[in-house]
């Protein structure tokens, strides 16, 4: 089980960050997106290769309106 943006995602242990972003409808070369795995920022260049192990927490963020 991986936790992506606060939701448990089943059957994706070992998926890459790129895979998980695709699940969210985000392409791997999307602008304005960043990803942290277990509190560490993973550079965009590593997304295709970086595999996320079970129990990890993934946060995928982008810009929203804010002061």
């Amino acid at each position, binding site marked *: 089980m991986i936790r992506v943006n606060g939701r448990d995602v089943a059957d994706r242990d070992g998926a890459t960050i790129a895979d998980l972003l695709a699940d969210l409808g985000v392409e791997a070369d999307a*602008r304005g997106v*960043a990803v*942290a795995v277990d509190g560490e920022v993973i550079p965009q260049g590593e997304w295709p290769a970086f595999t996320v192990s079970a129990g990890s927490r993934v*946060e995928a*963020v*982008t*810009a929203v*309106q*804010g002061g």
Partner: protein
Amino acid sequence: MNDPFLLAGRELGSRLILGTGGFPRMETLADAIGATGTELVTVAVRRIDPAARHSLIDVLQACGVRVLPNTAGCFTARDAVLTAQLAREAFETDWVKLEVIGDERTLLPDAPELLVAAEQLVADGFTVLPYTTDDPVLARRLEDAGCAAVMPLGSPIGSGMGIRNPYNLTLIVEQAGVPVILDAGVGTTSDAALAMELGCDAVLCASAISRAVDPVAMARAIRAGVEGGRLARLAGRIPRRTHAQASSPMDGLPELAAADVPTP
């Protein structure tokens, strides 16, 4: 008038920074950006919402403005630092409007946590623009820590109460070696003008514009306040006087009483 605003070595053509929060529609945001003439707008960092229909970043790029990510919503130095790092990766900028909040109701900054976060981000290579209280000592400590500007509040975020303590703001301006940007509290044109008259280098404004009845008209209004206040600062205002100073001459007055009435 040649009056460039240098922020972290970059020249900005407008002294008004726009917060993007609170606009009801993207179109309105884009129109307001145009109306303000701003070159720098803030965004927040949040989880990707697969249902979102618009890309804020695309809109801002189309407007030709630079993005200033903030760390709104962070209550600890650790969260703020990580959020800044995410933002740097996402938006390819090492500028960050640093917010470390200490209270949910007032959204006031947490001074000690803010300083810790600022120190860590400066060490990590960021250009740190901290949202801070109007405490002159904290402002100087942030500057000493290497922040590229200080962004004191006038009053709480979204409160529209203007500048509650102009005295403190004046002290901050007097001592600052980096730009002072009024952040939070502006409600209307006169608030923005006052900030500039007190010597702030710029004003950051979100809710006053985005939540006004007519945001685009208010964008123009507050732009006028910023520009007019800056002009007034440079033009050298008259001193305040306790009594009057006549604006019409007191000599050369005709004697108009009837001739048969002896005049003194």
